């Protein structure tokens, strides 16, 4: 672990690794010694910090650091990958040659000498949270705990966690790029168990992003604590949910999980390059109701899923995926873009230096429409209103996706009524967005809590949506 007060870039003079452009040129030359179309080096230095607060005390403090370099060589559709944890020329050279052994041989490829490329700044943070005084962050945790307990005497257990990271990356590529980025991130989360008589229920809430402590200005810790308690209390008397196809209204913000699962993954280009997604070969076709415009936006200031550069050294950007119901394009990494003969979209992401990048979402949003959210609820005779979720999953091949509601209510005669027990929604990707019959004006992005898993790798993401009405989706309750 390095001194918490220094902020020298991890890679370069005075950093944890004094790797130079010349050294990268040399390693890339070694990587392409047997040929290949492309090579890159991914240097990563990650620091993490965590506080776990439970039963009224700071129960554990965690700290960690990891450092390494992954070398990749791409030859046609084949990728060779290896990494080194010791950033000395010996182990790094061996990783480069091991990665390069994927190439068929028959002549080396010359890399373009690297030169520094600047990147945008979508998350300018003066002091990453894990470099701020510990006492300041512990005070935020205590405030959330106190607010959750004060919400109602039924609140029996409160857990608060603050997880923080500071990831510094350097990407050096055989097409001549040398790009660095510093990616701060934190996630603040409160979980509550409330009990009344023999009834017990849990609730949670959280937030965060690529921001500094200013995120917590005002009463933010108290709001998160109270929100977790509110959900637990609101769901205490939940009744069994209905089963079958129904009209469902999704509240703004976290409901964007629906998009992430129903269309987001299916539009990641690796599946489409291989023709294994049910969105394959459908660019230009209608895949959603004309009320739907979906973007993947890495440029949202301070958002959890934002990236200045992706993990292949390309700038983060905003990509329109679906415009007024028409499929416009896919999210690409370098490999899929090259093999599909198109432009990259800067969506090549990876969990860390030990693994290869894949096309991944950043912040995936359904843009605002024209309906008054109140009017959307009033328009439903009988249905469900859902506003808190625990996650989702999709089967890319057949398009079936699920997402799990942790706070939902019946809608009866245009009014939100009884709370419902935890229930799962299931739909089919290409079908569900054609069911979107109203889109609200109240777009909201999720607060920064979501993590996406694919190929065994986790990356932080954002989602967002206004209030939307789905004319029919299967609700997995118990009341048949």
């Amino acid at each position, binding site marked *: *672990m390095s001194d918490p007060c220094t902020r020298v870039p991890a890679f370069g003079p005075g950093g944890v690794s004094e790797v130079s452009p010349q050294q990268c040129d040399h390693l890339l030359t070694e990587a392409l010694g047997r040929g290949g179309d492309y090579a890159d080096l991914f240097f990563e230095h990650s620091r993490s910090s965590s*506080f776990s607060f439970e039963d009224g*005390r*700071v*129960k*554990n*403090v*965690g*700290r*960690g*650091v*990891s450092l*390494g370099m992954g070398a990749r060589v791409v030859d046609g*559709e*084949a*990728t060779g*990958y*290896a*990494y080194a944890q010791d950033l000395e020329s010996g182990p790094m050279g061996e990783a480069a040659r*091991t990665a390069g*052994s*994927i190439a068929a041989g028959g002549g080396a490829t010359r890399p373009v000498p690297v030169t520094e490329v600047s990147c945008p700044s979508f998350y300018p943070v003066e002091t990453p949270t894990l470099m701020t005084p*510990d006492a300041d962050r512990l005070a935020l945790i205590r405030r959330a705990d106190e607010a959750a307990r004060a919400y109602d005497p039924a609140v029996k*257990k409160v857990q608060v966690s603050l997880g923080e990271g500071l990831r510094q990356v350097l990407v050096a590529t055989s097409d001549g790029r040398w790009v660095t980025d510093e990616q701060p991130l934190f996630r603040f989360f409160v979980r509550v168990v409330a009990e009344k008589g023999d009834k*017990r*229920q*849990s609730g949670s809430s959280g937030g965060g992003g690529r921001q500094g402590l200013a995120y917590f200005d005002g009463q933010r810790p108290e709001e998160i604590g109270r929100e977790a308690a509110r959900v637990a209390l609101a769901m205490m008397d939940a009744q069994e*949910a209905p*089963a*079958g*196809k129904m009209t469902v209204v999704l509240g703004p913000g976290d409901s964007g999980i629906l998009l992430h699962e129903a269309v987001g993954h299916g539009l990641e280009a690796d599946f489409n390059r*291989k023709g*294994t*997604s*049910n969105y394959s070969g459908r660019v230009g076709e209608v895949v959603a109701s004309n009320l739907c415009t979906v973007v993947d936006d890495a440029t949202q200031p301070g958002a959890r899923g934002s990236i200045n550069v992706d993990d292949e050294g390309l700038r983060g950007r905003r990509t329109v995926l679906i415009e007024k119901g028409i499929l416009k394009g896919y999210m690409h990494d370098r490999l899929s873009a090259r093999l599909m003969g198109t432009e990259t979209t800067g969506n090549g992401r990876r969990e860390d230096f030990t*693994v*290869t990048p894949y096309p991944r979402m950043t912040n995936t949003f359904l843009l605002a429409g024209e309906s008054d959210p109140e009017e959307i609820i009033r328009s439903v005779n009988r249905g469900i209103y859902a506003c808190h979720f*625990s*996650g*989702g*999953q999709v089967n*890319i*091949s*057949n*398009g079936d*996706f*699920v997402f*799990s509601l942790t706070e939902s209510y019946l809608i009866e005669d245009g009014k939100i009524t009884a709370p419902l027990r*935890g*229930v*799962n929604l*299931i739909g*089919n990707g290409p079908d569900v967005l054609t069911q979107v019959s109203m889109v609200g004006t109240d777009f909201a992005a999720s607060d920064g809590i979501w993590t996406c898993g694919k190929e065994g790798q986790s990356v932080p993401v954002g989602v967002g949506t206004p209030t939307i009405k789905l004319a029919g989706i*299967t*609700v*997995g*309750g*118990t*009341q*048949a």
Partner: protein
Amino acid sequence: MSDSTDRMIATAESLVTRALEKGADTAEVLLVTSRELTAKIRLGKPELVQQASSRALGLRVIREQCSAVCHTADLSPAALDDFAAQAVAAARLSEPDPDAGGPDPTDLAAPADRPDLDIHDPNISSLDADRALAMAVAGEQAARDHDPRITNSEGATCSIAEGQRVLVTSGGFTGGYRGTYVSLVVEPVADDADGKKRNGHWWDGRRHLARLASPEAIGAKAARRTVEQLGARKLDTCQVPVIFSPEAGAQVISTLFGVISGDAAYRRSTYLLEREHTPIASPLVTVVDNPLLPGGPGSRPFDGDGLASRMNVAVDRGTFTGFLCDTYAGRRLGRPSTASAGRGISGPPGVSSSNFYLLGGNFTPEALLADTDQALYVSRLMGFGFNPVTGDFSKGAEGFWINKGERAFPVSEVTISANLDDLLQSIDAVANDLDHRTSTASPTFRVSKMTVAGG
């Protein structure tokens, strides 16, 4: 134990000593190393070859009942000195927890209590990228040859891992073990109507190379599972018996672990509070956590606290025998540990399963099916729909409609729901096809009634 294990123990011991010198009352070091090889092919050609070795360690220190856990991969002596000092400094930020800390030293596993669990296969070390690629090619080819309706492929992946874990604690525990693992997954794709694709991937994974199913068998089964899903449709919403395949059943059993864990008990995050020693499942249900299973994917000679592993019967013919505990959860609940501690490098020990499984019954799965008039057979579950506090269980499912003991047609895009309490009490048949391919495992079983939501 090998030379490299001895070196790892020496590194861990030196870090424990450093941490005590810096003022820790307790210091515990987990050091893990691994070598991994992943070989992925698609349509007969290499798509990814990844190989690397890695190492990392986690240090827990406790000083005046205040805990911190720090992790690093920099094992140089100078770095470890700083690291130990920073861990002790971090512990000053936490607050006294009288229950924190390792087990009573007299309870620690003695070297004689550490059985050979048959989890290391030297043949796996010699498996190289070419051989792994060849296994993947053979698996995919078998799938494509099996049925002409296999039109595409997500590929096939052969993965190999060799790892070592060493735990040294200031309470007096020193131990380490090695393990190996090899797996092969094949993912064929078929085209269905309406542009849908079907992917019925299949895989096997074992501690020993010789015990891995052949690439041909894995590929053929993957192909069969893929084409079986062609033409899948929804069901009308109904309440029917549900049969869980071993794979779907393992997911149910996995949710059960979450509510019988001592961590959930002291956090009051389980619907099973105050249900110990009472029936929580049908008398057909016996569930064990067995870290001593020879060759098991979740086998471990000692737990994350350094206690000797032992088999625990968690549910005995329907009766909940008690929460599984590590040392900490046991102290919180006022009882001894059940030696159920798991441990990673980046956090304190916590209750974790080893090989956790529902014991098999007397039926063959074929006989169980034949004994069923109408039911939904679930081959896959999807989603996060489980609330441990209330037991509400609601997940996406795909599989088959069973009519008069036979598969009638494939089903997808439905959900199945019940409270886990009702689900476990309603298990009315358990088959004998338990296979320890995964650390949490289940045979085929049937639940007499659940709500299936569809069109």
